[in-house]
């Protein structure tokens, strides 16, 4: 372990203390909020008003500026939960379980948004709200995976056991996600004529993809902001029997 830089090692040890996390991240929250608002604001206004309309889809393509960030966060959220799961099982870091518990409903919300925006986008593009194509079906299955983790956590009473059970489920799930996506994709190519190819779009001009990038970054920061806020609360809840939390509750407005 000597090749790990001292700074990282110290950070790792600090993360073993939920209290450290709470006290350190307090000052981050407003900055994250401002940065996220700025990026999303600029990206959205640019994408809605200034980007040129798409040759094939007209103005409905502007839904991309929220659909792509949502779909990305849906996937990334689940992967984050799996990483937390590994950290929890291998190193028994309590903070990892707190993050995992916070990410689940937030990731599920973005998955739902990806489904909804995908379906709404489908109507002007293909004429129907719901079409069983590979992508939307995979996102739907991802939503089920999220709901499963949330259901399992709720069903097990002891938080430590619930955390470890969800960790196992998240790891099993994350390994299965690419398998599920490939198999669903393959099934769709067997059963649908290849007219529904939405993937190979011509290269987007900068005036179209820059706002997309801005929104992706902005939504990532928004996600980080919510996860940090939620984890801070989770820290308070789980450590409520400690002196520092009791003091904090007395002082807090």
């Amino acid at each position, binding site marked *: 372990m000597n090749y790990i830089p001292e700074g990282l090692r110290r950070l790792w040890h600090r993360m073993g203390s939920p209290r450290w996390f709470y006290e350190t991240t307090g000052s981050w929250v407003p900055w994250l909020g401002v940065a996220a608002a700025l990026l999303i604001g600029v990206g959205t206004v640019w994408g809605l008003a200034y980007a040129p309309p798409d040759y094939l889809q007209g103005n409905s393509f502007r839904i991309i500026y929220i659909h792509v960030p949502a779909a990305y966060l849906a996937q990334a959220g689940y992967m984050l939960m799996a990483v937390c799961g590994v950290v929890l099982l291998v190193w028994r870091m309590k903070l990892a379980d707190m993050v995992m518990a916070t990410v689940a409903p937030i990731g599920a919300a973005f998955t739902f948004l990806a489904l909804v925006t995908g379906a*709404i986008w489908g109507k002007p593009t293909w004429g129907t709200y719901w079409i069983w194509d590979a992508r939307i079906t995979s996102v739907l299955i991802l939503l089920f995976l999220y709901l499963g983790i949330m259901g399992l956590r709720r069903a097990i009473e002891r938080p430590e056991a619930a955390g470890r059970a969800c960790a196992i489920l998240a790891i099993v799930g994350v390994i299965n996600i690419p398998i599920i996506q490939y198999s669903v994709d393959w099934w769709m190519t067997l059963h649908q004529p290849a007219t529904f190819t939405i993937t190979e779009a011509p290269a987007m001009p900068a005036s179209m993809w820059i706002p997309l990038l801005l929104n992706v970054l902005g939504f990532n920061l928004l996600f980080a902001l919510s996860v940090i806020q939620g984890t801070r609360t989770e820290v*308070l809840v789980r450590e409520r029997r400690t002196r520092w939390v009791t003091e904090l509750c007395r002082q807090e407005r």
Partner: protein
Amino acid sequence: MSFDSFAEFFAMGGHGFYVWLSYLSTAVVVAFVLVWPLWRRRRFLREQRGRIHRADALGQQTEAEAHASEA
């Protein structure tokens, strides 16, 4: 500007319903994602403060103090 007037912007070339419905849904989800942790935090603080005040009033140890003396 890709649109010549606000009316055009709103209409989105006939796709206005879809675009605005999507952005509205996003606003709802973003609001949820921001408000939910804050609401949980407020609820926890409220309940915990209640427990502490009750313990103080009864002259009893709060959970933390009991926990510390057990440890």
